[in-house]
């Protein structure tokens, strides 16, 4: 129960911290979504209830912080969580190569989703961003994700094996 009570606060601090840190390093030219890597990690190791709600809360708060349409990231994070769960149940998901590749794919899909939203809802074509920003972003996230997985696995609260 405590997990659900403290989750919104810690998720908010985590996301704000992520935004600030990344702005310091990348100066707004690129972003590394550690929160997305966390959601993938949760998909691999957490049970559906805890992980699903964590993904939803992270996504919802990210919507609020970035100023995007509420529900976009909430929907995407929840989807990524359950896809990660399904994938991890069917393949050997412990390998560094697989973690990197899967993260790379998820970041690219997010880029595609954002591009489509801009195209069809805001009427702005930012498709060039897919190659100029999201592709390098996906590569960086893919390369760094195994290290983040090792880091996250140190937190016992994120390694709930109750149901999975």
């Amino acid at each position, binding site marked *: 129960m405590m997990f659900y009570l403290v989750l919104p606060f810690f998720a908010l601090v985590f996301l704000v911290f992520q935004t600030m840190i990344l702005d310091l390093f990348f*100066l*707004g030219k690129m972003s590394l979504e550690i929160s997305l890597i966390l959601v993938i990690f949760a998909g691999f190791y957490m049970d559906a*209830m805890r992980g*699903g709600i964590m993904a*939803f809360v992270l996504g919802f708060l990210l919507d*609020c912080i970035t*100023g995007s349409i509420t529900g976009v990231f909430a929907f995407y994070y929840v989807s990524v969580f359950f896809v990660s769960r399904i994938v991890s149940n069917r393949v050997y998901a412990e390998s560094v190569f697989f973690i990197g590749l899967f993260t790379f794919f998820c970041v690219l899909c997010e880029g595609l989703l954002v591009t489509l939203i*801009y195209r069809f809802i805001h009427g702005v074509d930012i498709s060039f961003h897919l190659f100029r920003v999201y592709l390098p972003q996906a590569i960086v996230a893919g390369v760094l994700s195994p290290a983040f997985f090792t880091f996250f696995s140190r937190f016992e609260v994120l390694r709930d094996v109750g149901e999975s």
Partner: protein
Amino acid sequence: MFFPKKYHAVTIASILIVLSLVILSFNLKRPDEVGFVRKLVMEVAAPIESLITGTFEGIRGVWKRYIFLVGVEDENRSLKKKVDSLTNEIIRYREAYLESIRLKEHLSLRESRRMPMVSARVVGKENSSIFKTILINKGTADGMKAGLAVISVEGVVGRIVESSWNVSRVLLAIDYNSNIDAMIQGTRSQGILQGGGAMGCNLKYVERSEEVKVGDAVLTSGMGGIFPKGLLIGTVVSVDRKDSGLFQKIEVMPAVYFSRLEEVSVILPEEKPL
């Protein structure tokens, strides 16, 4: 828990996905409405962002000011404490001095423009590759609402897109979603200035026949009803007429250095006489 264990994960997945889709479709239908939870998140996030930004600025300052002094010669060590305290004092004075200059400039901006304005402090930044927004410490309680123009001493900053009670989010002019009616100062040719992310802005829909030069000032045209006419937005950095089509490709460097923004002014709608 409440459902058969066999369908536990599927049920939770369905509930969460449907919930997020409901929220998404609700917000797509009412893009101008800021929900209570979103307002609450903005209110809570602003002080956290402010605190983290302050901490980082502090660490950065300490790094710049002190770390490089570690290797000074022995005779300087005895003076270190004195230098430190004097440096701190100077920094405090300098900070106060710079702040007074900025505030004075804001005041003169308000007086020169003869427009009702509210000054606000930047308390948070969202500077990812796609989203370019800032949070300011004024909300609906101070008369803020979506659509109000935000400027600084240097020029146009952007417009407010959502407000909670004490905090507002400003969509910067460089955000892809930002469109500002603009004109070239010399030729008076009009176009739409669209944000281009980290690359600055693009002035669209200026006919190929118009003579636009690098270095020309780009001002607000006053056409959209959000920004008053004649505010500086930036300067032209490149003009490309090579592409076929009716319009030329103009890149604009904003006058405002967004990552250094600390104070801004929000232009309030003028009260119309009865």
